[in-house]
């Protein structure tokens, strides 16, 4: 694909070498995991970008210029991502770069973009720091960050179970502790009362020793950020001991996924989480997007596919508003920009380069996620803590 795109680019370059510069394609670099653990996410990123590029090019391109995507495999490794990004900027002379998945890779590639004076946008990375204390004038985020997911969930709880007693159970490492801390502050701000917390080791085999503590603190809501097989064990053991009876179980967006949902089975029913996209969003734009995506890829989009699809429309809107692909002009155009995505209209907050969007609460019912709540963009976005620009 890459060689073919390059070949086409060369051919176009030869034929059109005499033509004016604005008729040359706009090159967009995509550094995304095409192999390894995150290959499934990279696949969605690629499907979303390819679909958007096809649609934009068919409709006349960006300011009359075609879009050309150049893919590089980052192998979900920040060190590899940096090399590939450097190559795309230096050798392929890309105008814009996207696709990074791992939050570490996004932060590292952001620094490469600063050195090369180019702009990047992530469509996947969740870590709050990317548009928070580690924000960069060259980095934009079009997807929802972790804090917005917590805000959506906390809002849903406040509406369905006002002033609930909440118990927290997280895996004992950086991600587990930070997700619990973030959700705790979001829930307490909405009136929830924290009644206890436990951090279990990663790959913990038996959660029943903690059930006594959980039961005696009489929670109405249990929040968890365990993931993978730990979720399978936690949920089946909670069901075994009847811990989840009359208790609402909620959690992080990575707690129940398509990978572990089959093994959790009916014990996942009733679980609620907060996310930035759902295929069931009922709007004309989303219905069209889902239909086009399924027709092109024989597979449904997830949030990564949807946000990667949306990022090209973000870039298109910015370039057309700026009337140029010049970095400073495009950056100025991106700040405060409103553009249309499958989730509806998003707004790029100027202060920290974080997209504002409506957030959704999703509940598992009979092994499928269904929409149960929605939070307006300005209620979910949270404070701008970026101080660099």
């Amino acid at each position: 694909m890459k060689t073919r795109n390059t070949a086409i680019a060369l051919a176009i370059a030869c034929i059109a070498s005499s033509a004016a510069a604005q008729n040359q394609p706009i090159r967009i670099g995509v550094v995304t995991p095409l192999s390894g653990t995150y290959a499934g996410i990279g696949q969605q990123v690629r499907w979303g970008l390819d679909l958007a590029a096809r649609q934009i090019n068919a409709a006349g391109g960006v300011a009359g210029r075609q879009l050309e995507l150049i893919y590089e495999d980052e192998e979900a490794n920040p060190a590899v991502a940096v090399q590939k990004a450097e190559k795309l900027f230096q050798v392929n002379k890309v105008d814009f770069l996207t696709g990074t998945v791992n939050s570490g890779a996004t932060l590292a590639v952001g620094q490469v973009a600063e050195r090369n004076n180019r702009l990047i946008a992530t469509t996947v990375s969740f870590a709050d720091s990317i548009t928070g204390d580690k924000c960069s004038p060259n980095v934009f985020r079009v997807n929802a960050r972790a804090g917005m997911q917590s805000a959506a969930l906390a809002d849903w709880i406040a509406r369905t179970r006002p002033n609930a007693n909440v118990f927290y159970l997280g895996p004992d490492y950086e991600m587990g502790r930070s997700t619990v801390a973030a959700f705790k502050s979001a829930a307490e701000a909405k009136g929830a009362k924290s009644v206890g917390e436990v951090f279990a080791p990663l790959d913990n085999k038996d959660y029943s020793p903690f059930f006594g503590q959980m039961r005696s603190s009489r929670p109405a809501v249990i929040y968890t950020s365990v993931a993978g097989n730990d979720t399978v064990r936690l949920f089946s053991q909670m069901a075994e001991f009847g811990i989840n009876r009359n208790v609402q179980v909620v959690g992080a967006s990575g707690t129940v996924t398509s990978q572990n949902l089959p093994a959790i089975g009916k014990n996942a029913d009733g679980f609620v989480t907060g996310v930035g996209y759902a295929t069931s969003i009922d709007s004309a734009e989303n219905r069209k997007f889902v239909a086009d995506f399924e027709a092109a890829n024989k597979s449904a989009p997830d949030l990564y596919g949807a946000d990667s699809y949306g990022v090209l429309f973000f870039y298109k809107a910015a370039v057309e508003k700026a009337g140029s692909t010049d970095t400073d002009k495009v950056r100025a155009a991106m700040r405060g920009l409103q553009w249309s995505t499958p989730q509806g209209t998003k707004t790029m907050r100027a202060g920290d380069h974080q997209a504002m969007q409506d957030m959704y609460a999703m509940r598992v019912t009979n092994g499928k996620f269904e929409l149960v709540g929605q939070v307006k963009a300005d209620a979910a976005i949270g404070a701008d803590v970026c101080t660099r620009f």
Partner: protein
Amino acid sequence: MSNAMEWLQFVLAPQMINGLSIGVAVVLMALGLTIIFGLLDVINMAHGEFYAIGAYLAVALLATGMSFWWALVLTPLLMAVLGFVTERGLIQRVFHSKDRHTLTLLLTFGVAVVLEDALKIAFGANPLRLEAPISGATEMLGLFFPNYRLFVMLFGGALIAGVWLLVFRTSLGAIVRAAAYDRNMSASLGVPVQLVYAGTFAFGVALAGIAGVLLAPIYSVFPTMGKDFVLIAFSVVIIGGMGSIKGALLAGLLLTQVQSISSLYISPVWSDPLLFGIMVLVLMWRPQGLFGKLGSA
């Protein structure tokens, strides 16, 4: 006074019963390990993977429409065959070398790595779950306990007692103990030592397989599941005395109680270091463990 009673009934008692149910699981794992070590002097690093294979076999058998109970009977038989073949085909090849300890350790470690990846290829890396054949829970004296865990405790307890009787109260057990005590003398008295070795290894592997089936509904099934219990099972075997059944039983129940009760007071992350700390202390003061070997017990 009434506060203390309430604490006993609602906090301590459930925690101890919980610990007991985990203890039975640990002892089931440690039993096969200690029997194999006691007789063959082989540290079976692949024990955890045999446990995983037992669980996957049950998943596969249930997928053919077989009931859980038949799978519980059939799996150990199939596992015994696998254990027999492993002993004759692999372990015997390096068994008579003077580096036996190192070579069998490396060999079984290699087998473990291969088996884990084989499971990944055959069944995929995503977790699977076995539905518990007994559902519901029992409430007794204000205590609430899942029926399936009660069954595992009773069945596991009976199994442990059965192994005990087999080894110490039958002539077959006497042959095994004799072979462990003095291989040459047993052979000269007509004991088919080679067969006893392979049979004992097969028996240990079958025990790991049974543990896999019994615990699959509680702990779910995935390729690296063997790692969960094998570390604590090794600690139990070391503390109880390498090769001692009595030691494995006592150390297994004791350690899981320590973990269970301590988790009321300390962060769960410290319960494993606590366990290994006890192991280090035992190794410092009583390196042979609490009890002696199979042949001398």
